[in-house]
């Protein structure tokens, strides 16, 4: 019995990428293409790839952790010399094996959203960067916006995301912070609707019968659930309830424009799809060296905005410009390192 490194081009000196730009393979992996946010992510990746004259390999794993791992190890078993991966790990626990695999195979990796707190990007050579939005901050921002919308006092209910995801937990922690700052706002109930519009509809209906007119606001951990809650409100004939969400999906922006929804927080899918590939591409082609990436830029919060009726017009059609992906401008949206 002996150890073998699973990959083909094992453990090369990745720090000094010297790939011919034409040899670079770009891979973007998200859960599925059947939700607008992730589809736009992959489209952003395509746009970047086109910009550098390549194509992006689009992978989806249908929210199935094992399948994600399976695809990645299969991917890493192929030619990894100039492989650039921009990955959305399904959950925190899925990140370490992806990172280890990429490190062993010498593939350039950028991850987004999910990472265990104790996993340090700087400990790795080929894991270039981890980007996420500050979930606690978003949860708190929309919590505050909700509190303001209901006049600083009254009952609200919370719709949580998939309970064992970091995003769901962070955002809920943010809500709790906001509640601490708004002592007159009372959390009547919290339920999970698993980030799903349909589940949110049913749960909200039930909560509406349970708490009736006590509900003044609904805090949802993402826009899909917020939209489900809006449907439930509409069906119940209630138009006095404020709803907030996170993600800035097009429908939510429309709802904010129309005034049915109070606030959301931007996450910029197309940019996320492009930026991960861009970082990898710049390192792979030698335009950027890993050691030149600032420690703060190895794991960072991307810029996000609270979107309300007054500024929604700015976000209706998110645009990414080529300049966002230039090798010397990659980290311009950083809001600071993940603490």
């Amino acid at each position, binding site marked *: 019995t002996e150890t073998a490194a699973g990959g083909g081009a094992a453990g090369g000196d990745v720090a000094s990428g010297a790939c011919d730009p034409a040899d670079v393979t770009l891979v973007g992996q998200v859960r*599925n293409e059947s939700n607008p946010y992730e589809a736009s992510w992959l489209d952003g990746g395509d746009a970047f790839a086109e910009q550098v004259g390549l194509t992006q390999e689009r992978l989806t794993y249908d929210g199935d952790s094992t399948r994600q791992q399976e695809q990645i190890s299969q991917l890493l078993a192929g030619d990894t010399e100039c492989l650039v991966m921009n990955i959305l790990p399904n959950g925190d626990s899925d990140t370490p094996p992806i990172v280890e695999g990429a490190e062993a195979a010498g593939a350039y990796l950028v991850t987004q959203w999910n990472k265990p707190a104790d996993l340090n990007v700087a400990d790795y050579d080929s894991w270039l960067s981890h980007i996420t939005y500050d979930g606690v901050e978003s949860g708190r921002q929309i919590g505050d916006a909700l509190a303001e919308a209901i006049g600083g006092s009254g009952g609200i209910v919370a719709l949580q995301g998939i309970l064992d995801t970091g995003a769901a937990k962070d955002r809920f922690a943010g809500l709790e912070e906001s509640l601490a700052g708004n002592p007159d706002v009372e959390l009547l109930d919290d*339920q*999970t609707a698993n980030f799903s519009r*349909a589940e949110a509809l*049913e749960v909200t209906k*039930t909560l509406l019968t349970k708490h009736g007119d006590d509900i003044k606001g609904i805090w949802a951990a993402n826009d899909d659930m917020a939209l489900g809650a809006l449907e439930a409100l509409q069906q119940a004939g209630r138009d006095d309830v404020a709803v907030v969400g996170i993600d800035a999906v097009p429908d939510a922006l429309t709802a904010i424009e129309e005034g049915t929804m109070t606030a959301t927080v931007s996450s910029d899918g197309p940019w996320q799809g492009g930026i991960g590939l861009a970082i990898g591409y710049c390192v792979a082609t030698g335009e950027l060296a890993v050691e030149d990436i600032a420690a703060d830029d190895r794991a960072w919060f991307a810029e996000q905005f609270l979107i309300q009726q007054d500024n929604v017009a700015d976000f209706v059609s998110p645009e990414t410009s080529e300049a966002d992906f230039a090798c010397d401008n990659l980290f311009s949206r950083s809001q600071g390192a993940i603490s």
Partner: protein
Amino acid sequence: MTSPAEADTEVVQARRPQPRRGVSLRDAGPPIALVVVFGVFAALSPGFRTLSNVQNVLDAAAVLAVVTIGISFVLMMGSIDLSAPGIMGASAITVALLVANNRNDNDLGFVGIAVAVLLAAGLGCLSGLALVLLKVPSFMATLGVSAVGLGLATLLFAGVQPNIADPMLEGWAVERFLGLAHLTWIALGCVLLGWLVQRYSRLGRYAFAIGGAEEVLALSGVRVAPYKVAVFTLAGAFYGLAGVMVTSQLSAGLVQAGRGYDFSAITAAVVGGTLLTGGRGGILHSTVGVLLVTVLTNGLVQVGVSPYWQGGVQGLIVVAAVAAAVIPQRRRNQVTK
């Protein structure tokens, strides 16, 4: 050659029973369980026993009821059907793109709904054909069709959420008649239709008979294959309608419109007293099962069980309900699969 009458185990168990017509006591388990669960929640939670919550429970049961009616016909035959998520997804996207929506200029209204249901029936038919022509067990055939349906839905979805603007379809979820949403009346209509089909149509009775003793039908000169295909087609149509209903509720066509409905519908049917081996149960049984499952989901929220535990408690109660229902019929040499 099939051997005649693999004489269903029922025959063996019912050794010397009294001749029996229609409903019997052994069907009473699920309704009793429903009443008990309802009573317990009503006692525990004042919010649960309000009229508006009862309306809410009925409204919430609508989609599951339609899916379960479809699946009941398949289960009656002794087959299984896991295609609901795919078929519902395909029909949800299709209808959203055919009625007035924000993606294109279509405004087919009722025709759009009909097309979506027809497409769904076609996908159901595909399961049936794979079963009778390729002899692929329904478990796999329908799992395959579900994947095909999801694929189709993803293709049609093309990255942009279709939101509907059709007043009729949107109205189904919002407008009420006698306190219940139109969707709930549609579901009730489906229950009635399903019951009539089961009781008064050859298709329904043969589906029942196929579950009882398929070989015997062949011996009697009945060609079962067309009926099997027809049952899967009918089930597909019901899933399609359910997909349309979800679209109406959410005002948007979602690829995931049917996520999870396969197992919840089977659970509801089985809790209602339909046997997975076929030949027993029916639409009314399944309806009771749907109500039981919906009451549970609603009641656990009303009572305030932690979201972490809700799934587990629901599983436990389902098992307990089924156990309570089968205890009176327990026999020494009984076969349970």
